[in-house]
C-alpha cells in the first residue's frame, strides 16, 4: 500500500543536503513547521536557500535556522517582524542574501512552479524598484511585469490533518503557503497534528491532494513559537 508516513521529523528531513532550496510554510508562526525546522537544524545542512514569507522571530524555528548560519539566501516578502532580530543583524553584516518579492507575486510564483507555468505577467510592482530589470509589457492598455516560477527541492509544511496518501487539511489561517509549497517542491514534507489511514479525510474537504506530498510525520502537539519566544527559548 502507498504509505507516506514516516516515523519522526528527523527521518523526514534526513536527505536535505547542503545547498538545497527549501520552501518553508507559515505566515509568522501560523503554519510554521517548527518541529521540521528544528530537525533540519539538527540535520546540519548548510548553504540553504530558503523561500518563506518571513524570517522567523526570537531564536527558535526559522530564526534559529538562520542564526545557526545554515541559510545562504532567503526569498521572502517580509523579512522583519516583531521579535525578528536574527535576520536583520545578519543581513546588515552581509552574512545572508535576500531576494525581496511582493507577497502576492511570491505566492503566484510558487503556485506557477507547482503548476508547470514557467512565467506569467502581473501588475504587482510595476513602476517600482522590484520590477527593475524585468520585462514589462502592456496588455489592454495596462503595464505588467514578467515574473518567473519558483521551485524547490523540499518544502517543509505544517498541516492539520493528513492521511497515508498525503491528503491534507489545514487549520484556519495556518493554511497560507502550505498548499502551494507542497505543489512546488520536488519533495514536500508535512508535519500534521492528526494522521490517519486513507479515508481519514472527506474527499470533498481535502485541501492538498496527496499527489503533491511525499512524506507525512505526525506531530500531535506542535510547539507554539510565540510562547517559546516569550519564554526566551533558544534552539538548539
Amino acid at each position, binding site marked *: 500500500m502507498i504509505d507516506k508516513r514516516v516515523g519522526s521529523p528527523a527521518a523526514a528531513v534526513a536527505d536535505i543536503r547542503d545547498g538545497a532550496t527549501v520552501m518553508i510554510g507559515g505566515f509568522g508562526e*501560523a*503554519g510554521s513547521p517548527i518541529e521540521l525546522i528544528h530537525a533540519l537544524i539538527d540535520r546540519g545542512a548548510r548553504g540553504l536557500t530558503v523561500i518563506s514569507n518571513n524570517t522567523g522571530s526570537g531564536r527558535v524555528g526559522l530564526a534559529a535556522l538562520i542564526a545557526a548560519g545554515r541559510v545562504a539566501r532567503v526569498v521572502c516578502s517580509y523579512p522583519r517582524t516583531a521579535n525578528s532580530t536574527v535576520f536583520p543583524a545578519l543581513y546588515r553584516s552581509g552574512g545572508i542574501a535576500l531576494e525581496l518579492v511582493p507577497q*502576492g507575486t511570491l505566492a*503566484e510564483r510558487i503556485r506557477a512552479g507547482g503548476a508547470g507555468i514557467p512565467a506569467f505577467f502581473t501588475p504587482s510592482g510595476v513602476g517600482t524598484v522590484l520590477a527593475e530589470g524585468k520585462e514589462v509589457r502592456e496588455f489592454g492598455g495596462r503595464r505588467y511585469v514578467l515574473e518567473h516560477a519558483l521551485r524547490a527541492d523540499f518544502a517543509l509544511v505544517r498541516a492539520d490533518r493528513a492521511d497515508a496518501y498525503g491528503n491534507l487539511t489545514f487549520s484556519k489561517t495556518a493554511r497560507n503557503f502550505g498548499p502551494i509549497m507542497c505543489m512546488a517542491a520536488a519533495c514536500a514534507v508535512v508535519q500534521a497534528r492528526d494522521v490517519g489511514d486513507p479515508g481519514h479525510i472527506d474527499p470533498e474537504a481535502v485541501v492538498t491532494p496527496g499527489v503533491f506530498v511525499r512524506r507525512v510525520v505526525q506531530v500531535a502537539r506542535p510547539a507554539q513559537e510565540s510562547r517559546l519566544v516569550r519564554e526566551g527559548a533558544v534552539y538548539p
Partner: protein
Amino acid sequence: MAAADIPDGSYVNLGIGIPELVARSVPAGRQLIFHTENGLLGVGPPPAEGNEDPELINAGKKPVTAIPGAAYFHHADSFAMIRGGHIDVCVLGAMQVSETGDLANWSTGEPDAIPAVGGAMDLVAGVKTILVLTEHTTRDGEPKLLRTCTFPLTGVGVVSRVYTNLAVADATPRGFVARALAPGLSLADVQRWTGAPLADGRSTTGRAP
C-alpha cells in the same frame, strides 16, 4: 471618516496598524466584509482575552476571529482575489503620497534599512479603490503629501483619496483636491503642511462627497 465613505456591502482589506481601526467605526446599518491577505474573508473583531488562537490571525499577525459566513483559503487564492480586482477597497498607511496618487509606504530607501514589502504592492495593483489613512506630516513635521515621492514607490497612480488629521484630499491627474478640512482649519492652514498645491474641492455643504 474613511469608514463612512466605504459603500455598504464592500469587500475591504485593511492594512497593518492605523487602518485596522476602520473596522471599529463602520456606521450602523452598513455591512463590510473584511479580507486579510493571509487567507481569511470575513474577519471578525479581536477575540476576548484568553481566546486567542495562534492559527487565526490577520496580516498584522494579531489574533482575530472569523464571522459566520467566513472562508479560509491559501495564499495564491487570496492574492487572486486581490490581483483579480475582487476586493473593493483597501485602506493603507503611507510614508508619502504624490499628488497624482503614487504611494510610498514600504521603505525609506536608506542603505541599512531592512527592505520588507509584504502584500502592499499587490494590494495597490489589484484593489479597485485605495484609500490612505495617515498623519498629515511626519513626526518631524515634514509633509507626506508631495508633488513627487522621494522614497521607493509601492505603486504608481494608485491612491484615490487620503485621510489625514488635517484634511481629506483626492489625488487626481491634476493634483490634490481637498474634499474636507478638520474643524477650524482653512485651506491655507492645510496648504502650509502640504508639499504640493491643494485645490479647493469642498462641496458647498462642506461634507466629503
